[in-house]
């Protein structure tokens, strides 16, 4: 790149950095402000414009404004677990979709849907089954039927990898409102059948994994597709088992993509609000709910909001720094082809 080009690039980066980071700076100082310092008008410099105080932070940690440590702990555990799991199995699935052909007959797919939906409706409306009981009977039967039917020669189009990929992604197109409510209902019913899912680690993590997978698969697919297939074919000739090819050869080559996708999944789960609200109560409530709760009925207490928001941001920032490192070394690996 030319010298002049470099200067322009730097200028652009600086402008954007200012735009990006000023709100963060604002949040940082506001968390140290007293109510009059906020209400009286914008103040910019601690010690010069206003006298900083630790009140908002003390409030936050004291539990006066929601159970801070509990929610932080819950958020960390669930996020880490769900993100690692989603990235791992999502990458596997993406790899499969890139390297192996899948064929699903449309008829089989429609049959699955018909039996699942029809069966569920009949059982709940016609025979008065509970939601979970009806689901337990209808969905597995639909799945078994569809798999069996798929082996037969059916007329109609055959769905390939691209369509399966699209199916995965389409799961994220559905607005989360009714999904959250429906999940809550089925979790409650399963809970009544003996396996408590509401307000549990597994219940929440499963939901997060399921809804992060589409993004992981969609994004990783292109990273895997960009890798040269010759290396793998060479390994296959040497009779290296498939899973070793994946773990030892493919994954390291796609490291930048993996790191980026992991980061994104992490951000999504850490910040997700709706599912956390409905699927948790006291035990596993997460940070976004705490942050939203600072927006109270009696008004916006900006200092409290800022402190809570910062707590939610700081772990993510640390992680970004760490993963930024990883991406750099990925660059080196990627060059070794």
């Amino acid at each position, binding site marked *: 790149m030319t010298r002049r080009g470099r200067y322009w690039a730097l200028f652009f980066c600086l402008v954007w950095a200012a735009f990006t980071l000023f709100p963060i700076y604002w949040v940082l100082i506001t968390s140290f402000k007293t109510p009059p310092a906020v209400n009286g008008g914008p103040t910019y410099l601690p010690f010069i414009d206003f006298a900083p105080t630790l009140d908002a932070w003390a409030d936050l940690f004291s539990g006066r404004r929601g159970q801070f440590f509990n929610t932080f702990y819950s958020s960390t555990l669930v996020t880490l677990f769900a993100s690692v799991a989603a990235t791992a199995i999502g990458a596997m699935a993406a790899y499969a979709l890139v390297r192996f052909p899948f064929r699903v007959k449309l008829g089989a797919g429609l049959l699955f849907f018909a039996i699942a939906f029809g069966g569920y409706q009949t059982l709940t409306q016609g025979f008065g089954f509970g939601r979970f009981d009806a689901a337990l009977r209808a969905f597995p039967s639909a799945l078994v039927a569809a798999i069996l039917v798929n082996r037969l020669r059916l007329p109609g189009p055959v769905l390939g990898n691209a369509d399966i990929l699209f199916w995965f992604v389409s799961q994220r197109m559905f607005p989360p409102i009714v999904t959250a409510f429906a999940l809550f209902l089925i979790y409650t019913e399963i809970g009544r059948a003996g396996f408590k899912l509401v307000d549990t680690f597994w219940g929440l993590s499963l939901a997060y994994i399921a809804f992060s997978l589409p993004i992981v698969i969609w994004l990783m697919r292109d990273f895997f597709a960009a890798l040269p297939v010759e290396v793998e074919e060479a390994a296959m000739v040497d009779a290296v088992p498939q899973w070793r090819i994946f773990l030892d050869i493919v994954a390291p080559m796609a490291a930048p993509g993996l790191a980026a996708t992991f980061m994104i999944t992490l951000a999504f789960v850490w910040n997700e609000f709706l599912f956390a609200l409905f699927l948790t109560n006291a035990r596993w409530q997460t940070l976004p709910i705490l942050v939203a*709760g600072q927006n109270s009925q009696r008004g*916006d207490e900006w200092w409290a909001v800022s402190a809570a928001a910062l707590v939610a941001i700081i772990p993510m920032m640390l992680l970004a720094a760490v993963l930024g490192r990883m991406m750099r070394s990925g660059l080196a690996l990627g060059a070794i082809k």
Partner: protein
Amino acid sequence: MKKLLTGAAFGALMAAGAAQACSPDFSGVTLSAASQTGPYIASALTAAAEGWKAKTCGTVNVVEFPWSELYPKIVTTLVAGDAAFDVITFAPAWSPDFTPYLTEMPADLRQGALWEDIAPVYRDRLMVWDGKVLSQTIDGDVHTYSYRTDLFENPAEQAAFKAKYGYDLGAPQTWSQYLDIAEFFQRPDQGLWGTAEAFRRGGQQFWFFFSHAAAYASHPDHPGSFFFDPDTMDAQVNNPGWVRGLEDYIRASKLAPPNALQFSFGETIAAHAGGQVAQSIGWGDIGVVVADPKQSKVAGTLGSAILPGSTEVWNYKTGAWDTFDEPVFSPFMAFGGWQAAVPQSSLNQQAAWDFVTFLSSPEVSGKAAITGGSGVNPYRASHFENAQLWSAIFSEPEAKGYLASQRDSIEAKNVVLDMRLPGYFSYTEVLEIELSKALAGDVTPQQALDTVAAEWNKLTDEFGRDAQKAAYRAAMGLPN
């Protein structure tokens, strides 16, 4: 001998003490109480939980949810029959949607001096639904008027005001006076504006609108006819009284700080406490914050009064305005005050009701009422009597004025109850949309309210006119 006696006495005392602990005995019981995120209400619950634990050996776990998500969270839990909560705290406006799932207050708690101590408007009207006491008030809520005594008692201001408007500057008796005062103090170049209220969609705006309209549309001779015609369930919101209220409300928005249209109640408090406005209306929190030197730039200048009234009230039966010699005051019980109740799905109902009673007992609630962040406003007669309590946060004249305004409001003859109907959010949603349009000037007040009335009637028919009428009459305390 002496030692033996002392020992015996000591032993007896210990035994007596042990018998005193855990009464009634709920050791091993853990209650879950759902509330909005603290500190308001949640901190009152937590403080009461500590006291309750000392008394009964039972624990209370306070679960907090964001204010705007509390309603959906409670509904979904109740509907799914999940036993997650033993105590729920909620807004009275939501109670019609909860009542099918709540337990009735045990009979033994509904009598005696403690029961009588609760102000009648709460005890006999707000806590009752369909003849049953289904919840306990744990907080009192009414809109009052606040003003800056340093401005109002300034002789130069008084003289200038009298010269311009012809009457003495003081707490306004009517809404026209309120607007005059706002106009008088509208001095943007000095950083002072006339008034502050909530105007934002989703920012509690419609309660402020109701406060304006109540004076014109709630006729003292026709109780319960404010929102709907109690005989036909037709919406009243587009009658001339309401339109006048909306016109006043819109005018107030122009005599307020520049972004007033974005104000929720929080910004209203902030504007008054920040010294930007001469007066404001709202809940009791304004007074508590304004008087607190740690949170306010104008501490010590709090003046309180009941909401302005009107000398003209619309009579819906005759279709004309009635004029009165003295202004009729119709303080509005905006929001109504947080309620606590015990769902039917709870597995610890007896313990739960015991905790609720403890929470609302005079000592515990009295302490909460004077604690800054508790969110509890007075609702028991005993709260008002103990002015000593209040001097901890207010100066004496501030305290007297504040308590008087709160008390006069809930004991006023023509006090107006907030709307409580099944499907409450459906009604308020269309109201909020039309209000924001009227405030932006996109439609005239009459057009906005006509749309609201038409939509409300449609909703009433959709939900079942007779059912809604019965519910409305019950909510207003009218016989069925």
